[in-house]
């Protein structure tokens, strides 16, 4: 008989995620993913003014603070048939690209890098050799032997003080760490640089959105006035700052993040064959250049891929009753029509009914209900969402920008295209699209400046802002590609108020429990057959789960006292 191990919570994420995995002969045979907290934003929104929804939904998470607000204004605009001015679209796109640049860099260095980089081993590196290696990888100026020995001294002092802090939860010295000490030291140095860097790039959100965290949005456009000579609005001085931040951000991504990603990946090519999972990918699409209603204009094209077949990309319709549905067979909810049915979000219900074991407990009852996440399906299929899905859809559609970046990386690493369907592929895809969004951010900025110089400073269409202009009932859906994947909100407006509001978020697609047919979702599926060298230190599970960039805060809409325990790994069973 195999062993069941429990990882709860998976660390370095917002919110609480629990993984139970059965291990047999050193490999994972079965896996269960559970969201252990719930946040009923849907109930808070009922009866409110739809124009205010963005301010509430923006609070479901502190990580991708603006994505939900963006999706919400798009949802209301769809319901009320409001078209936003070109400048508002550009400002939203610049903010969205900024989010990608920030979020992906922070994910790579601060949430995921320590799964690959052994911090303690970095103390053994030779600073001179590290410097030579760094200079062979990139032109990034901070690469002298003195720089690396200084970093080593600081970390050494920190480790010696016994206050490991950020590094306290690592499995240092685990046999699955494969990097030479010098690469570990480069990774660690850039962990610290990225920390300083990330606080700069987010200022773009404060400039356009008035504040950060949680910048301001507006139904009908953006709530900022713009003009080169505008004293209190977005003027030439502030635009020059955005220009500089976008350029510095792009340089960091191209000269630090991407070379590090490729250097680290070259030592972990075996992970190009681990953690693939479903092989079904779903993208709603984003970064419109001619309005949200023209999908052909999207920088992130939408579509679905089934069974790793990139010769065919299927269209996705968020409004069709039978395409996207949520199931609760294994979720702590009740549907008025019973547990077997799937509901389109416009008909969605969110009545909680916790039937799980009373904490503290050893195992969840995985034969019954075991998560606060619902289970979304597209045409009955379990789908992975996120960077890998986006890169694969762009690549499958033959778009040159995607082809160029992916083909170069495959050639440099000397791996086949099938290596993309993996944990490594997921982590690499995040880097690819981060580099793309850094380029696109500049393109959107140049276009914005050109519009302003041509005299177009319109930022909002408020002709339908007054509720008296609205129909008695309206339905809308708004979508976005959050850094973690496809995100959509569905709204029903009745008598100028929100009658129903449903969110289906990326981590729900990826981390949900099984459906009525017993099909696994992306996390569970990706863990099957993963080797685990030491079940008391399941680094391999964490690598694959972190490769999805889990964020539970919005996917489950509370904690129980169990959720507040420090991270632990239990080995149970025999």
């Amino acid at each position, binding site marked *: 008989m195999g062993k069941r191990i429990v990882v709860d919570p998976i*660390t*370095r*994420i*917002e*919110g609480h995620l629990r993984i139970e995995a059965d291990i047999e002969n050193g490999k994972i045979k079965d896996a269960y993913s559970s969201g252990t*907290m719930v*946040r*009923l*934003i849907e*109930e*808070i929104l009922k009866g409110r003014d739809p124009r205010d929804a963005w301010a*509430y939904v923006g*609070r*479901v*998470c*502190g*990580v991708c*603070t603006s994505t939900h607000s963006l999706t919400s204004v798009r949802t209301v605009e769809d319901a009320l048939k409001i078209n936003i001015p070109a400048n508002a679209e550009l400002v939203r796109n610049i903010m969205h690209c900024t989010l990608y640049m920030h979020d992906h860099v*922070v994910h790579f260095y*601060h949430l995921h890098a320590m799964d690959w980089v052994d911090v303690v081993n970095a103390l053994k590196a030779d600073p001179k050799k590290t410097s030579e290696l760094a200079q062979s990888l990139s032109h990034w100026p901070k690469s002298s032997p003195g720089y690396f020995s200084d970093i080593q001294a*600081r*970390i050494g002092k*920190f480790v010696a003080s016994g*206050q490991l*802090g*950020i*590094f306290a939860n690592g499995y240092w010295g685990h046999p699955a760490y494969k990097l030479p000490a010098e690469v570990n030291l480069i990774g660690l140095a850039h962990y*610290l640089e990225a*920390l*300083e860097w*990330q*606080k*700069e790039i*987010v*200022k773009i959100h*404060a400039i356009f959105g008035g*504040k*950060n*965290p*949680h910048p301001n949005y507006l139904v009908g456009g953006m709530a900022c006035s713009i003009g080169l000579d505008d004293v209190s609005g977005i003027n030439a001085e502030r635009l020059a700052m955005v220009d500089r931040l976008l350029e510095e951000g792009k340089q960091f991504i191209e000269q630090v993040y991407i070379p590090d990603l490729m250097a680290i990946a070259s030592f972990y090519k075996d992970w190009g064959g681990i953690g693939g999972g479903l092989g079904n990918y779903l993208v709603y699409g984003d970064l419109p250049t001619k309005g949200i209603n023209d999908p052909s204009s999207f920088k992130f094209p939408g579509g679905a891929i089934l069974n790793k077949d990139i010769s065919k990309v299927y269209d996705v319709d968020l409004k069709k009753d039978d395409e996207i549905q949520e199931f609760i067979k294994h979720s702590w909810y009740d549907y008025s029509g019973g547990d077997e049915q799937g509901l389109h979000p416009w008909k969605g219900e969110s009545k909680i009914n916790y039937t799980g074991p009373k904490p503290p407990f050893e195992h969840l009852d995985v034969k019954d209900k075991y998560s606060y996440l619902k289970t979304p399906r597209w045409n009955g299929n379990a789908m992975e969402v996120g960077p890998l899905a986006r890169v694969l859809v762009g690549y499958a559609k033959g778009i040159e920008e995607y082809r160029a970046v992916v083909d170069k990386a495959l050639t440099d690493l000397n791996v086949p295209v099938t290596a993309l369907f993996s944990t490594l592929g997921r982590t690499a895809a995040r880097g690819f699209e981060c580099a793309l969004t850094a380029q696109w951010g500049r393109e959107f900025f140049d276009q914005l400046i050109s519009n302003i110089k041509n005299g177009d400073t319109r930022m909002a269409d408020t002709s339908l802002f007054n509720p008296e202009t609205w129909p008695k009932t309206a339905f809308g859906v708004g979508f976005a590609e959050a850094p973690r994947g496809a995100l959509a909100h569905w709204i029903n407006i009745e008598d100028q108020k929100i009658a129903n509001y449903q969110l289906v978020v990326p981590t729900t697609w990826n981390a949900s429990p099984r459906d009525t047919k017993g099909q696994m979702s992306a996390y569970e599926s990706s863990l099957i057959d993963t080797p685990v060298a030491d079940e008391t230190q399941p680094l391999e599970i964490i690598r694959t789960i972190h490769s999805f960039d889990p964020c539970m*805060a919005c996917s489950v809409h*509370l*904690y*129980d*006292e169990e959720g*507040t325990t*420090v991270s632990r790994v239990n080995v149970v069973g025999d």
Partner: protein
Amino acid sequence: MINTNNKPVLLLGIGNILMGDEGVGIHAIERAESFDIPEWMDTLDGGTGGFHLLEYFEKYRHVVMIDATLDDKTTGSWRKITPRYASDFPRAMSTHDIGLKDLVSALHLSGRLPEITLYVISIESIQQQGIYLTDKVNKGMEEVLQDILATVHEPLAVV
């Protein structure tokens, strides 16, 4: 908000406004704005915080934080802590403790840790949803704000 006026002290509220008493830090910032705040103090609704807040910790010399905590103490009671290391933070400091602790460690590592005073208010549950505080926690919040105004002083000018 970007600190362009070089005020030395930041009053920072942390929490999730959608989760009842857990959002007490955010409510405190809203409430503080109706008080007579000294001209050397800024206020910031930090949301659920994390790395986004690094720039504020580097810009101010003293950061006074207000957050919820889930412990066994009486609901609405509060404590004032001066943490030096991330491990000095109370363990069950709500949903966002990981991000905030990481932030403090990182500041420690970079040698840029400002003076930090942390007020924690005990709440009964983080299973609440909604955007309002219970009476006990609201009372605790008022006491914390009074204590801040009475005991936090303007730091001496840097020579």
